[in-house]
């Protein structure tokens, strides 16, 4: 992964230049490359139990036999997996003294997003007073969660404190052998969240809305596991509308969701990783495996995503509808601008009877980007009375971008009722003229029209997230007209 090393080097040089020294962190870093030793190193660093080390090693051995998937409509130079570091202890990032030291461009974006000042500081790595309000807020939240028995902690803590739960569910939705990137993640994951909602509990708050700042030091290979016991409910928010940079170019996260009888998980994501410069250089490669298993009857999993960042996005949040009457939903906004490449969509695997799914995908391409929706709806032989509704809309801005829709349907049961609608449209000159005649500037008009186009999906987001996401939609498309 030549690009990765280059970035690491540059970061090193910049820091040297800025602060006059480079910290020796070698001992906290796994050696370059990926071998069995690397995997053992990571596991040892985290003092993991033997079973988890074995689990990782099995994944690693499997990974050695696998090949990178090539079917997605994305292109990038070959990744040298031996030219990367797979573990670095959480960095003590150098704190800045005030917002004056932060890149003004970044601050401007924060402002446009309406992020409060204190949050801006935390995001930009400015030292914040210890008596910061949020500390007590976080404590109150944690207190509340504890009262109802919800577990919400880093994955490594869950391995230590709740090994029986982790061992039972980890890899039960995305097996270690699932796909190249998921297998790689299984071998080397180091960060991530663990959530457990006990039977009958309705989680009293959106998880991670507030915590998202603290969770920001997410790694390259994140691993998230959420378990909703019978009759429970949780809404989980991942990501952040503020632009995020990372020195690691490759990101391969795995997210597993499990719902038991009558349970529901609502998982919302806003992804805004660095997309690279005008030529697409230096942007993040985001190869993610997200899957939910509606294991129990009448359970429900709903994915909502707003994808605006990354140079390459390869991501298909899916639902296995195993329990009878279970329901899967996928709501997606994928925006690509500049040289970004997006290949995203979902899989709805109907195994149980009377299962239903709904897919609403809104792809917006601008600049010279490429935006592909790829979706599978599959109906098992024994799955009676399955219903699916799919709506795929693409919006093109300018004439140098492209949009593609690739729906796959596999039905082995004739009782299934599957509906598919697809549209492709452009922002018309008439619409632009109309908005501008009312005094709305060019970029704001684009933002308004695109937000209208995305409305069905934006409405699925929790309130405060939706407001930021709307602004983000506008910001992502800046410079796409004129």
């Amino acid at each position, binding site marked *: 992964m030549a690009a990765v090393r280059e970035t690491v080097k540059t970061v090193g040089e910049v820091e040297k230049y800025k602060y006059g020294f480079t910290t020796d962190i070698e001992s906290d870093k796994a050696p370059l490359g990926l071998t069995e030793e690397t995997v053992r190193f990571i596991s040892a660093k985290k003092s993991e139990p033997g079973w988890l080390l074995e689990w990782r090693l099995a994944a690693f051995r499997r990974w050695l036999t696998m090949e990178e998937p090539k079917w997605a409509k994305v292109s990038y130079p070959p990744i040298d997996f031996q030219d990367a570091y797979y573990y670095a202890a959480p960095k003590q990032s150098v704190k800045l003294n005030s917002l004056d030291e932060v890149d003004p461009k970044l601050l401007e974006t924060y402002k446009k997003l309406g992020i409060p000042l204190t949050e801006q500081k935390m995001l930009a790595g400015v030292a914040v007073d210890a008596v910061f309000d949020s500390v007590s807020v976080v404590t109150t939240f944690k207190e509340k969660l504890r009262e109802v028995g919800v577990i919400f902690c880093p994955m490594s803590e869950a391995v230590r404190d709740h090994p029986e739960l982790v061992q039972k569910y980890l890899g039960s939705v995305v097996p270690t052998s699932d796909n190249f990137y998921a297998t790689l993640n299984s071998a080397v994951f180091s960060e991530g969240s663990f959530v457990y909602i006990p039977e009958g509990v309705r989680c009293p708050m959106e998880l991670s809305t507030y915590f998202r700042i603290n969770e920001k030091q997410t790694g390259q290979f994140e691993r998230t596991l959420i378990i909703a016991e019978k009759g429970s409910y949780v809404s989980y928010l991942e990501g952040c509308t503020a632009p995020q940079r990372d020195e690691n170019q490759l990101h391969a996260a795995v997210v597993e969701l499990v719902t038991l009888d009558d349970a529901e998980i609502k998982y919302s994501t806003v992804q805004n990783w660095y997309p690279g410069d005008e030529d697409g250089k230096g942007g993040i490669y985001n190869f993610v495996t997200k899957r939910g298993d509606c294991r129990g009857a009448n359970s429900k999993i709903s994915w909502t995503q707003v994808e605006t960042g990354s140079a390459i996005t390869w991501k298909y949040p899916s639902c296995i509808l195993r329990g009878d009457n279970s329901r899967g939903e996928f709501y997606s906004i994928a925006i690509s601008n500049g040289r970004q490449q997006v290949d995203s969509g979902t899989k709805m695997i109907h195994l149980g009877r009377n299962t239903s799914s709904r897919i609403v995908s809104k792809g917006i391409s601008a600049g010279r980007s490429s935006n592909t929706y790829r979706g599978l709806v599959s109906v098992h032989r024994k799955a009676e009375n399955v219903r699916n509704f799919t709506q795929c809309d693409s919006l093109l801005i300018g004439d140098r971008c492209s949009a593609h829709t690739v729906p796959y349907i596999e039905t082995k049961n004739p009782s299934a009722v599957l509906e598919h609608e697809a549209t492709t449209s452009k922002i018309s*000159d008439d619409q632009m003229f109309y908005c501008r005649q009312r005094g709305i500037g060019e970029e704001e008009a684009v933002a308004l029209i695109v937000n209208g186009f995305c409305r069905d999906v934006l409405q699925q987001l929790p309130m405060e997230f939706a407001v930021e996401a709307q602004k983000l939609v506008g910001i992502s498309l800046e410079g796409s007209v004129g």
Partner: protein
Amino acid sequence: MDMLEIKNLHVSVDGKEILKGIDLDIRAGEVHAIMGPNGSGKSTLSYVLSGREGYEVTEGSIRFRGRDLAELNVDERAAAGIFLAFQYPIEIPGVTTMTFLKTALNAQRKARGEAELDAVRFLKLVREKAKPLNVPDEMLKRALNVGFSGGEKKRAEILQMALLEPALAVLDETDSGLDIDALKTVAAGVNALRNPERAMLVITHYQRLLDYIVPDAVHVLSGGRIVKTGGKELAHELEKTGYAAYDADAA
């Protein structure tokens, strides 16, 4: 001072000359009507005043409140006080009428250096303006012009005008497609906005509208030229005789 001063205006679209030397002065407080056969250039004039791309001024000038309009782009002209009620209002899917109105009003206020209205004050204002036009709350919650009937679209245009309070309002066939009650409502809405600081240019095919919105002057546009100007009685005359006498070639 003149609100609008058009001198020898020539306009081409796709290289084809549509307006062939228009002179027109409108003073603050006045309402002028423009009538004329299909294809004579009425909508073209409205677009050119709005600054629409593709409408090239090849000769002549337009001054608005003493300012050369050539300096201003579409949204700047809107913020400066030019409003166009469209002959065919455009659909904006997924954007509620309410959101659209708020975005437009605040964009204009911002451009003029005024404070933006917050949600509460805006809601109050919009309800106040919507009531006399019989625009129900339910319509404000729907996507702008999407699935609106012809009459609803026209009422929504007038609502926008009432909210944005322009200095110069150009109404392009706002009466077409309206039933008689809606026509009265719309005309009342327009009349309510008449005041000494505001001018209006009303494009119509029918004298009937001018019974409700009584103009100070009526112009006949034919073949890209103003071929006759008169008082409100000219509209009655045209109703009887048609445009035959003003055939562009004959003029």
